[in-house]
Every structure is written in C-alpha cells, then in structure tokens.
C-alpha cells in the first residue's frame, strides 16, 4: 500500500517539475520574496539618505528593539526577524495552490483522473497521496527558499556592513509549525473546491482569500501595528494546524466517484 501511494506522490511531484510553465510559477514568487525584496531593502537602507527628517519619522514608528545600536543594523534585524517570516506563510500557500490545483483539477481536465480511480486504492488513499505530494512539495519549496534567503542575506550584510545577522527563535516556529499548517489549509481548500471545479484556475481561486490575513500580518510588520512574536506565532500555528486537520477530514468524507467524474 505504501509503495502504491508513494508512486502517486512521485508522479505528482514529477508532473509539476516537468511542466515548465508550472515550475516557473512555483519559482518566481519565492525568488522575488526571498532574494529580490530583501536585496532591494538592504540596498535602499545602505545607500538612501537616512538622515532626512521624513525617514527619521518613519524609523520612530518602527519597533526597533535596541535603539542604542546603529540604524542600519536595526533595520536589518527588523527585516530578517519581522518582515521575512510573514513571507514564509505566503510561499507555502502559493506552492501548495499551484501543486494541488495541478494534481486534482489538472487530472480531471486531462481525463487522467478516471484512469487513476480504476486502481485498487480507495478514494481516500488516492486523495491522501495527492495531499501528501502537494504538502511535501510546498515544504520543500519553503525549506529551499529559507536556505537561499539566508545565504543571500548573510552575504549581502557581510559585504556591506561587515557582520552576520542571526535569525531568532521565531524562525523555528515559522518553519516547523506555521508554514506546514498554512500549507495544509491551502491544499484542503483547493481539494474541496476541486471536486466541483472544472479548471485549474477555478480551484486556485479558493485559496486566494487565504492570502488576505497573511497580507494583513505583513502590513502589520511594516507599520508596527501588529508585530509578530513567538507567542502570537505559536497561537497562529496551533489554530491553523487544528483547522487544517478538521478541514482535511471533512473534505475527504464528501468524496464520491460520481461527483468527481462529472
């Protein structure tokens, strides 16, 4: 049974990596968020005239913990430990949406779903395999994004300022709890809509509204209104994980061959 499910997982992941258009979609967002945005931010901080009164006013609003240190270092900390973590809620949502939509509705569109349903696995097992594939891929994308981001960030700060930045403990919570939970919610929403959706685009719309709370959290970091801390992340993570499990159970119990093959 394990091997059969594994075969589906492997096929689904290969299906997306061999599709150039889908694979590009999968890569663009993480590259922009983890390489371009932080680089631009660092360059602006380094070379823009930070002494102007407007800029000082803006700085005063920001939650710079250690005011005694120089502004540049503080801004970099803010970047790494407050702004970038929220990106790691966006990345899994995006990766999971692309993958889940492709593997559920994509199969329906290309008429390969019926063939798969004729295999000796139950509907639940097939869907578990597909959820697992989407989840693994989204976690892989997150992990690689994190590694790339860290390398880029450390190289840049080291070259421009001559020191290393340390990611704080929040990152552990983000990568091990919040990211996986948010990604599972996104997958479940896509799976739910995919039973009725007729095209990949239809199914992806289901996960779009998930982006709003994350964007609000992101805005919160930039304006200092709602700052993330370890406790907040823990609560978000646990709530999301519970929600994901509930949604997943509920969506799977509704599947029937008849509704899927319409």
């Amino acid at each position, binding site marked *: 049974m394990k091997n059969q499910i594994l075969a589906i997982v492997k096929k689904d992941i290969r299906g997306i990596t061999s599709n150039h258009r889908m694979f590009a979609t999968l890569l663009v967002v993480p590259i922009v968020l983890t390489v371009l945005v932080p680089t631009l931010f660092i360059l602006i901080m380094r070379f823009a005239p930070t002494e102007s009164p407007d800029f000082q006013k803006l700085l005063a609003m920001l939650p710079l913990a250690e005011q005694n240190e120089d502004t540049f270092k503080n801004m970099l900390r803010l970047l790494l430990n407050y702004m970038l973590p929220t990106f790691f809620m966006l990345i899994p949502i995006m990766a999971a949406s692309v993958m889940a939509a492709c593997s559920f509705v994509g199969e329906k569109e290309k*008429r390969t779903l019926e063939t798969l349903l004729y*295999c000796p696995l139950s509907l639940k097992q097939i869907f578990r395999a597909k959820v697992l594939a989407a989840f693994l891929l989204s976690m892989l994308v997150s992990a690689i994004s994190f590694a790339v981001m860290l390398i880029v960030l450390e190289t840049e700060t080291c070259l421009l300022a001559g020191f290393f930045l340390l990611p704080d403990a929040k990152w552990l919570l983000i990568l091990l709890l919040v990211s996986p939970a948010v990604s599972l919610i996104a997958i479940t929403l896509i799976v739910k809509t995919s039973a009725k959706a007729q095209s990949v685009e239809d199914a992806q719309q289901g996960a779009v509204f998930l982006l709003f709370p994350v964007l609000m959290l992101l805005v919160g970091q930039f304006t200092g209104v709602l700052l993330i801390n370890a406790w907040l992340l823990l609560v978000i993570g646990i709530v999301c994980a519970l929600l994901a499990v509930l949604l997943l159970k509920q969506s799977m119990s509704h599947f029937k061959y008849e509704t899927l093959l319409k």
Partner: protein
Amino acid sequence: MNAVTMNSLSKIYAGGKKAVDSVSLSLSQGEVFGFLGPNGAGKTTTVKLLNGMLSPTEGSTSVFGIEPSQNPEKVHALSGVVTEHAQMYDSLTGIQNLIFYGSVFGLGETESKKRGMELLEQLELSDAKDTKLAAYSTGMRQRLSLARALIHQPQILFLDEPTSGLDPESAQNVHSMIRRLSAEKGITVFLCTHQLRYAQEICTRYGLMAEGRLIAEGTLEALRSRIHAGMQVKLKVKNMPPDLARRTDDDTYELPIRSEDEIPQLVQQIAGAGGQIYHVSSKLPSLEDIYFTLTGKKEELPQ
C-alpha cells in the same frame, strides 16, 4: 462462480435520464461477451456500474462475487478497464506510464517495467516506448490503454470501444490479442462496441442493448433462431425465371430459404426454366441483421 452478475440493474441519472433499465445478465469465467448497441444505449454506464464508479439506482451487481458499489477497490484489483475517458499522462513516455500504473496496482518497479515491455512488444509499441504520450496517435494511445489495463494481469477486462480510432490492421491485431487472452489465460472479456461486424469476429456470446434495455442475449446461433430459422441465398443469373426471387441488382437476386437442402432443387428449377447461373451462395443472418430485425431499424448504427 460467475465473473459478472447483474440483477435488474438500473441507473437513473440526476437529470432523470434512465441510462440502464432493469438489465439482468450473467457472464461465466473466460467468456468474451459482446455488449452491443449504438452510443447512448447504456453500455458505458453499465461498465461504470460494474466498476463502482456509479452506484445503481435499483438492482444489484457483482464482479467475481464482489459488490462494486461497496468495495470498488477490490473489483479494481481484478479488473482492467479501457474507456474513452480514461486517458494517461501526456508528459510521461509510454513505458513511464506503464511503470506508473504498474506501481499503483501494487507491482514493483522492476516487475512493472518487465511486464510493460512485454505488453508494448505484443501491441507493437516497442519503438515508441520512450516517446512522450503527447506525440502518440489516437491508435497508439488506444493500444497503450490496453497495455495499461493488462499490466496487473486482470481476471476480467472491461473494454469500451477498444478499437475505435484504430486502422483495420491494428484493430485486427487487438482482436487477436483479446481472443488469445481469453483462450490462453482464461480472462473474461466484457466488450462494449457499436461495431457489430468486429464483435461477431471475437465474441462467444452477445447482449444487444437499445435505449438502456437488454433486448436479446445469447450465442449467435441462439440469437439467429430468435429472428427466423433460415438463411438468405444470393444468386447471379441471366434469364432468371420471373417471380422466383427478389432482384437486388443487375442479374443478382436474393431469396430466403429454410436450409441449404433447398439449394439443389432451386438450382435445378432455374436451370430447367432456361436460366444461366453464374453464382450461388448462402448466408446466415449476421449480428447486424439480427440487431436491426430486433430493433425494427433498417439503417446503420449511429456512431
């Protein structure tokens, strides 16, 4: 144990369309059963009911004693299905597709590959094994579907129009493979088709469907005896005595007789009256003749 049993099986779709109407039927193991009728007769719906993709509205069915609506995956383990709607992955090559489906059916990767290569060889697809499916022609896809359905050595094959889109030579090839599978391995075949001529070549028993109902069922002989006990004689005669036979073309005539025993007397009668005989042949009613007689339709089956 019967390979397939259907008891007053009916399916009414949500829109109210009665696709299958009280069909009762049983298939023994090793039979090649032709399930015949035009598109819309209920053949595909029956295949889906037999594989648990649809639940019956009324009646029941079982495949090797397993009820498909209760345990679809157990039925799937025993059956291979080829239908028009069951496609494979365009982004994978022929052999990659077969390896994938082999693994999903519980074969190891090495075994799937070995079986896959054998099947590709038998279906004359070896040259295209490393070609992506996107570049396959309709006929090649159809043959690969058959290979896919056979990868786990099923006990029963459900084939829904397996030769549609195939050129006559490939169709012939597929037919001889189906016959061989049934004769050598005892695989039961449930063959749905509207091509009655092809069906007559390979099936051992038939079920004729019209508008969801099973209108007749049995061997060719049994079906022939249901319409009339007799045959048609075709003659080519110059100076044919009048009113003896129906003229179909220049100098060609047809008439019904009860058995071949009547032919010598008929020939003598024509020759005695001064007719010159060029050709005499007798023909038993074909499946098409039987189908059209039973449904009262004269035209070709709609595609």
